[in-house]
C-alpha cells in the first residue's frame, strides 16, 4: 500500500466568472522512504499539488489517500493532527515568525500536536531538532537575527520536531546561495536516508536529479 495515493486530483480557483485550473487531474503514488522531485515551469501547479498533499488545500475533485485512508473522510481534528505530526513543511522563504526565537518557532507544531507535551519536554525536543540541523547554538536568537542558511535550518528543524513521516519542501533552497543550498539539500537527503519520505518542489534540476524519482508538471498535469 502506497503511503500517499493521488487519483485524478484536480484543483480549481474561482474568482467571479473566471476559473483557473491549477491542477487538472494528477494521479501519483508515493511510497514510504521515497524521495520525489516535482519540477516544472512557474504556474504549472506544483505548489498547489504540494498543498493538497499536505492537507492545506482541499481538492476540487479526485481522491487523496494517506496510508490507504481517504482524506475526504477525515475530521478537522484528524487533519490538524496530520499537519502537525505526519507532515513537515518547508518553504522557500523559510516562513519563520521574525520576532520569535528559534526555539519558539520550532516549538509551534508541538503546541498543536496530538500529544500533550509539557513545556520541558517540548523544549528538549526543540533543542534536539535544532542540534540535528546544526543550529543548537541559536536556540534563543530571534529569527530576524539569523542568516539565510540558519533560518532555513531552523525551518527544517520545525519540520522535523514532530518526527513526521513526510517532508514537504517547496523550493527549500530557492532563497539561498548555492553553497548553503547544497548544505540544506544534503540535510534533506540525510533525512530520506533515515527513512523519511521527501516530496520536493523545485526548479533546480540538479537537486531534482538527486531525488529517487522525478515528476515533471506542465499546465496542471504530469507530463
Amino acid at each position: 500500500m502506497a503511503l500517499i495515493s493521488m487519483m485524478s486530483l484536480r484543483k480549481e480557483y474561482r474568482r467571479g466568472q473566471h476559473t483557473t485550473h491549477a491542477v487538472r487531474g494528477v494521479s501519483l503514488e508515493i511510497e514510504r522512504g521515497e524521495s520525489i522531485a516535482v519540477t516544472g515551469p512557474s504556474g504549472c501547479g506544483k505548489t498547489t499539488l504540494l498543498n493538497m498533499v499536505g492537507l492545506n488545500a482541499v481538492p476540487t475533485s479526485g481522491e487523496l489517500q494517506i496510508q490507504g485512508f481517504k482524506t475526504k473522510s477525515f475530521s478537522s481534528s484528524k487533519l490538524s493532527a496530520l499537519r502537525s505530526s505526519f507532515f513537515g513543511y518547508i518553504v522557500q522563504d523559510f516562513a519563520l515568525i521574525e520576532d520569535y526565537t528559534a526555539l519558539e518557532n520550532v516549538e509551534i507544531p508541538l503546541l498543536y500536536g496530538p500529544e500533550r507535551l509539557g513545556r520541558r519536554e517540548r523544549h528538549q525536543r526543540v533543542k534536539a531538532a535544532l542540534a540535528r540541523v546544526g543550529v543548537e547554538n541559536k536556540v534563543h536568537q530571534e529569527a530576524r537575527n539569523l542568516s539565510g542558511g540558519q533560518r532555513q535550518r531552523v525551518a527544517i528543524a520545525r519540520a522535523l520536531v514532530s518526527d513526521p513521516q513526510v517532508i514537504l519542501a517547496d523550493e527549500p533552497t530557492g532563497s539561498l546561495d548555492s553553497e548553503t543550498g547544497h548544505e540544506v539539500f544534503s540535510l534533506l537527503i540525510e533525512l530520506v536516508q533515515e527513512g523519511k519520505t521527501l516530496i520536493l518542489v523545485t526548479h533546480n534540476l540538479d537537486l531534482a536529479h538527486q531525488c529517487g524519482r522525478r515528476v515533471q508538471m506542465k499546465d496542471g498535469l504530469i507530463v
Partner: protein
Amino acid sequence: MITQLVFSFRDIWRKPVIFGFFAIQLVVALFFGFVSLDQVRTSVQHTTVARGLADSRLVFFSPNIATLPQRRLTPTELMVTTLDESQRAYSVVTSLKLQDYPGLNVVVGLGAFAETFRLAGDLSAIPKPIAFVGHDVDVVQVGGVVEFGERNTENIAVRSRLPRGSSYILRGTPTSLDDSLLILVDAKSVLGYFFNSWQHFDEIMVNMCLVDPTGAELAQFVSRILNDAGVALNPIDLNAHSRQVHDGNFYGALFFLVFFGITMVYTLVGIVVNMLQLIDSHLSEYAIHLLSGARMWHLYARVFIYVFVLVSPPVMLVSWLFLLMHQMPMYGLVGVVPPLICLILLLAGFPILKLYKTDLFAHLRSDDQWH
C-alpha cells in the same frame, strides 16, 4: 486555549501603546455613556416623582441668604399653624444624627409630610412621633427602638418599613428615603427636642413646602416670615420648576448621548481598523500556525481573546465606578456581562470574517502560485 491566550498576550505586547491607547479611549467613551445614562435615569426619576405630585401644586422656597442674620423673633406660632393645624404644608429637618446610629441618615418630617407623599397610609389617629425605616436600611429594624432628641429625649419604636423607592421633595429635588430613618414629629414639639433650636428652625423655614396654596395664603406666609423672622423667601412653583429641570436634564442627556455615540463609534471603528491591521500584519504567522497543525478556530480564539482583553477591563472599570458612585451592590456587574459579550462579538466579528475569507496559504507561496 491556553496556547492561544499566550499568543494573544504576545500580540498585545508587540504593540502595547496602541493597545493602551484604545483601552483608554474606550474608558472615556464608556464614561460619557454612563454619565448620559445617569442623566436619563435622574431625569426620568425626577419627572415621575414630580408628575405624581402635580395635583398637589406644591410651592417650595428659595431663601435669600443675605436676610438670614436679620432675625427679629421666632414665629413659632406661624410654624405651628401652618404645619400642624392647616395640614397644607410640610417641612423637613435633614441635618440631624442619632447618637446610637451616627451613620444613619435621619429625615424629620413635619406637617403633612406623610400625607403629601402618600407614605404609610392613614396616620391621623396615631400620636407623633412615629418612626419608619427606609427600604435599604439594615442597622435599624421594624420594632427596634431609637432614642430621639437632645434636650427632651424620647424612645420611638420603628413602626414599619417604607416601600422601595419612597421619596420626598427637598427644595424642589426628589430625594430618596430608601437609606433613611423617617421620624414624623409635631411642629409644636419639634424645637423642644433640641438645644440649638434656632438652627433647626432656620432649616424648617427654608425647607417649608406649601400644598396648593392660594395667592393670598402664599403672600401672607412670605410676608410673615419676612416680618417676624427677617428671612426673605422666594416662592417657586414645583410643577414649573420640574418642567424646567426636566428640560435641562433632557437636553443634558441628549448632549451626552450624542457625544457618547460619536465617541463610541469613533472608538469602535478605530478598534476594528486596528484589528484588521493586526490581522494583515500576521497573515504569514497565521499560515505558519495552520501549517503546523492549528485549526481555524485556534486563530479565531486568538482574535477573540485579544478583543476580550482589550474591551473587558474598560467596561468593567467604568461599570464598577458607576456602581460605586451610586452605592449600588457590586453584583450589578453581572448585568454588564451580556452587553459586554455582544460588544466583543461585534468587534471580533470583523477580523474573524476577514480571517475566514483570506487564503492564508497564499502568504507562504513562492513564485509558483495561483491566485
